[in-house]
């Protein structure tokens, strides 16, 4: 079973501090949506509201047609995977997994059967009689996953489930989580502060900041077409240059920077360009060129670092601090005057704030 989740205009407070403001979010059936952001952005608060551990000040939460807003946590029927696993230390692995079934009054023999089948799916059938204290971190997280899945919830939620695991295991486990979630077709809400983790397994990602969703989109769109400066910066567009359009010629647009440098951009490649806009690029999308004929932002190069595939330069361009990459064939010294040429394929156009 799987149901869509709707969060409508939720506002939430901790004491008198507002932690979420008018937040709305919808998850389609079977969709995995991540809430991504730094600590304090409201992502965990959102999850706790949906779980029923917190009450919103206003707004509604719906799972399918069921209104969860005022329902106690134990009646919400949500599978939850915790950051610290939260396994019951006094119960064996099998009893942990069967716990939810016991609350649903499933008969003892059936409970054991289903718990064992789920443990088999996460590859821990041989550890069924152990206590959680005797398991490794990765094993504990698998038990937590099995415990949440065995009740066949219409919604799964993950609260930074991999942050206590080492790097290699994190990658394995996130693939495993995605496979199990896909196989069951369960709607899932996934909270993380790890961008790679969120982008790699999500259908859509909500980037959060100060209690609001800054952008909710597919990972591809977020990565290539951030909607605002915050998201752009978050996904690695380190350079943000304010520009004004001076001439339009069909799809070709000429724009001038505050320091007077002119660039020519194509709306075919970048989408509609407003009269005033921000050009966002990653270091990779801003190439250092010493060719006098190159069209770009004039800059003075600063510190050079070696990235393996390229050199990276800290550069000063008309009062802006930018980060640009240059070819390995030509290491340039501090103080060199050069042009920074944006590569349209790696640029994004943003509305000014």
């Amino acid at each position: 079973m799987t149901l869509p989740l709707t969060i409508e205009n939720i506002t939430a407070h901790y004491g008198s501090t507002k932690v979420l403001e008018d937040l709305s979010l919808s998850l389609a059936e079977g969709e995995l949506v991540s809430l991504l952001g730094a600590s304090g952005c409201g992502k965990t608060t959102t999850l706790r509201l949906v779980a029923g551990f917190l009450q919103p000040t206003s707004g509604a939460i719906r799972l399918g047609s069921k209104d969860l807003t005022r329902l106690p946590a134990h009646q919400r029927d949500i599978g939850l995977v915790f950051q610290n696993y939260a396994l019951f230390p006094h119960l064996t692995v099998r009893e942990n997994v069967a716990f939810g079934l016991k609350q649903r009054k499933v008969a003892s023999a059936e409970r054991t059967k289903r718990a064992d089948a789920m443990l088999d799916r996460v590859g821990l059938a041989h550890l069924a009689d152990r206590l959680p204290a005797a398991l490794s971190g990765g094993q504990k997280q698998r038990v937590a996953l099995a415990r949440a899945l065995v009740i066949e919830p219409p919604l799964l939620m993950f609260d930074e489930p991999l942050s206590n695991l080492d790097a290699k295991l994190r990658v394995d486990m996130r693939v495993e989580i995605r496979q199990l979630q896909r196989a069951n077709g369960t709607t899932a809400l996934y909270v993380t502060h790890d961008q790679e983790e969120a982008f790699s397994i999500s259908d859509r990602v909500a980037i959060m900041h100060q209690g609001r969703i800054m952008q909710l989109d597919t990972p591809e769109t977020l990565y290539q077409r951030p909607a605002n400066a915050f998201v752009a910066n978050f996904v690695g567009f380190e350079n943000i240059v304010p520009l004004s359009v001076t001439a339009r010629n069909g799809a070709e647009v000429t724009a001038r920077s505050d320091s007077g440098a002119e660039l020519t951009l194509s709306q075919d490649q970048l989408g509609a360009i407003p009269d005033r806009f921000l050009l966002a690029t990653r270091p990779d999308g801003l190439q250092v060129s010493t060719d006098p004929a190159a069209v770009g932002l004039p800059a003075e190069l600063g510190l050079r670092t070696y990235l393996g595939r390229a050199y990276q330069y800290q550069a000063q361009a008309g009062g802006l601090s930018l980060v640009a990459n240059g070819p390995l064939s030509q290491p340039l010294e501090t103080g060199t005057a050069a042009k920074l040429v944006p590569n349209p394929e790696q640029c994004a156009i943003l509305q000014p704030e």
Partner: protein
Amino acid sequence: MKRLAGWMLATPATLAIALLLVIPVAGTIGMTFGTPGQGDWGIVQPYADFFASNFRRRVLWRTFEVAGYVTVISLAAGLVTAYVVARCPAWTKSVLVVLAVFPLLTGVIVRSFAWLVLLGREGMVNQFLIWTGLIDGPLTMLYTPGAVIVAMVYIFVPLMVLVLVGVLENIPEDLLQASSSLGAGPVASFFQVTLPLAVPGLIVGAVLVFTASFTSYATPALLGGTRQMMMGTFLHQSAMVRFDWPGAAVVAAIMLAVILATVLVMTRLAKRLNPMAT
């Protein structure tokens, strides 16, 4: 060198314990043995005499009974109180803990005296019951095991609350959240998560209260009188009224044995039942 310094540092305390505890206790226990070859039981004849007496067996049994009731009632009352206190916000919790501990600041004798005033023939409880018309004449409440039990529960519950609040606070919040996310209501969570995880604390609290009430003297002396003697009051009577020092030593040795056995068995049990240990 380091080891030597360690031993030297431990010497004063070791000497103090040897002089003030081990030697007197050994002397007391030594006093309890009879002469070999005399009587049916040889050197354990004084113990046989103790258990041969109906009166003394009743005193021992009554002590067990009273201590048992006090322990069970304190566990139940303490657990409920501690559960409520532990779930309060931090500030409320500290106020409640201070309130719970407040009676500990007065002496046991003063607190037992309070019950003397409450439970006497002309005491407040009788006056109240007569005023409501529930009874016609005053009830005899003083000098009954009931009076001793009520007063001891009153004395020991704060101790139990203190121990259990600590234990309940240590149960991670996310275990209870996990439990409720899996469909367990507050009652199911209490019995399936909180209670099993509190067992080691319950055992510690039970050992504390049981040993303290088994050996208590002031409360049974004031509220139990001479007719409802317990081991503590009997020990006092043997030594200070009848000057039967060997007899008193036997009482003391039996109390010591009961307490040692309780502590040993219960700590073993606590270790076995501790889910946090591997």
